[in-house]
């Protein structure tokens, strides 16, 4: 056992100096083995990689904005690259990083994709194609992904009810825009709304008590 005369305490670590005051320890020099593993050099590769990519994405975007500014011929293409880089970082943060469940990943990916198409449309002069075609196609894609996930994870199909509601609300919003004459139709608004509503209602009817219980849990106040 080693002792620090200055602090008046015994020290069990594998060391010859006091942890607190740095004085040389007195005693027989014997110590027990460290009771914790030595993990100081363990690196967090994934976190570091994501941070580096995020940093370079920001630097690259600043560089592209400067080029776009001095070579502007009517198209704000740096907005598109900015949106794409933002989407890339979002994907890395939410998808590669295993911090979130796959349903949250689907939700973030779809929301990010909707935002990206609107940004691109805006950068190209806002002709409205993002709302006419882009968003309903993303809603349809989301419906397809949900169906696929439900088939694979069939024992836990009810977990997807909440994201189905998100798809349904998005499609209702899009339908509202169509009925108000803000977007073209009728094929895509009806198709995305019809598909989302069909998946959700059939889950409610076929799922019966399981679906009811899931909604009760998800919406308990």
């Amino acid at each position: 056992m080693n002792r620090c005369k200055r602090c008046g305490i015994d020290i069990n670590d594998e060391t010859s100096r006091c942890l607190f005051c740095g004085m040389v320890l007195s005693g027989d020099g014997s110590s027990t083995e460290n009771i914790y593993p030595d993990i100081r050099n363990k690196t967090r590769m994934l976190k570091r990689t994501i941070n580096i990519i995020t940093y370079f994405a920001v630097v690259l975007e600043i560089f592209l904005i400067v080029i776009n500014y001095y070579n502007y011929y009517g198209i704000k293409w740096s907005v598109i690259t900015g949106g794409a880089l933002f989407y890339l970082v979002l994907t890395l943060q939410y998808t590669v990083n295993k911090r979130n469940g796959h349903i949250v990943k689907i939700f973030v990916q779809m929301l990010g994709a909707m935002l990206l198409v609107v940004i691109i449309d805006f950068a190209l002069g806002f002709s409205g194609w993002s709302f006419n075609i882009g968003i309903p196609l993303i809603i349809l894609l989301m419906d397809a992904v949900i169906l696929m996930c439900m088939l694979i994870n069939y024992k836990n199909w009810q977990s997807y009810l909440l994201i189905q509601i998100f798809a349904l609300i998005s499609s209702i919003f899009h339908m509202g825009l169509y009925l108000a004459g803000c977007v073209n139709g009728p094929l895509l608004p009806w198709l995305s709304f019809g598909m989302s509503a069909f998946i959700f209602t059939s889950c409610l009817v076929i799922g019966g008590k399981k679906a009811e219980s899931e909604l009760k849990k998800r919406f308990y106040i």
Partner: protein
Amino acid sequence: MKKSNSKKASARQDREDAKRLRAGYKSTKKNSWQKLDNTANLFPAIATHTMTNVYRIAVSLHEEIDKKLLQRALDMVLPEFDTFNVHMRRGVFWYYFETNHKMPPLVEEESDYPCRYIEPYLNNNYLFRVTYYKNRINLEVFHVLADGMGGINFLRELTYQYLRLKHPGLCGNMDEGFSDVTSLNTEDSYLKNYKKSHAKGYKTARAVEVKGERLPAGELGVIHGYMQLEEIKRACKSFGASINEYLTGLMAFSIYSEYLHGQASSKPVVVCVPVNLRPYFDSMTTRNFFVMVSALFKTEKDDYIFEEVLAKIRESLKGQINKEHLEELFSYNVSNQKNILLRFVPFFIKKLAMKFVYRSSAKAGTTTLTNIGNITIDDAYKDYIKDFYSMISVSTGQNIKGAVVSYNGRLVFTFTSTLADVSIQRRFFSLLSEHGVNVTIESNGVYYE
């Protein structure tokens, strides 16, 4: 290269072994869901990688841990503990727990700093982890599940089961049964015992914040101080204080003399002390059931001596640790939870509000000192168990914290800190030594070059 390949092969072999060994695992047939308790509602909103809200309770044995047997013990014990056998799911208005039917988390050798963040979507969605190192079993728990008493309850049964597997015939025919002092109660004791209240119980005035050079990001410094309970009791008696009051007083005095250099400050030194509510409300719940009281020391002049600080801390604690005040403290929170208007607010908005409220009130504490108390063990297992440890993660405004646990006449005080400076810890243990308590310390090595 060769070394890394052999490591990978050994890890693969381990996984295959574990799979084979656990092929017969049967998850519970229960399929229930439960609301988070009042305190637990806060944790998913505020937990991050830097403020993990994870605590660790560990037990060291007199023998090295056998990984496979520990895994088997966990597989056997977990399905019976409804508090731990859950995963957390997101509702529109609140999070909730649901029975987890996945395999129990894999027992791993300790390879990271204590109290690291528990990712709700890894670890088979379990909100706790079990690791081991040499002769120590570590249980790390996300506070959303249970408080220290709930954690001890689970760790004790896990250890008993492990020892029964390791030493067949240890308890006669009792192969899988639980001890008769183990609780499996999962009631929400906050809801059961709350009374309508309007008074805001928690203080939000700012306290002294211990700042300084930090350890590298992600590192947590741990220092254990071992001492004999009898010596501590003798020291407490000489100051006319209980163990809790004495250690809290020591903590406040160490911060005052080392961080404030024994000078007056406009902000008080506040030691937050979690109080176990079970004895006051006759509860046996394994979930959270505690409140925080604040031991306040107003540094109105220079050069206080320890006795003066202890008297102030004692007075502050005595005024708060009584059933009526404790009831007021949690009733205020529960009445917020039951407010019909607040309940209808979607969780992502509640989360922002909770974060804001937490951040403003978190700075009202300088540090936290938690005392798990004395752990009792059935006689049959006593010869195998050496020590218990407890430690808590740091949080906003509180870069250094303490945790106490005692077992078999020995008390272990553990400091956790993200600060490079150890002068507060040094003053704390030196004072103990001056008061006639022999202290032996052990660290996790981060303070050495």
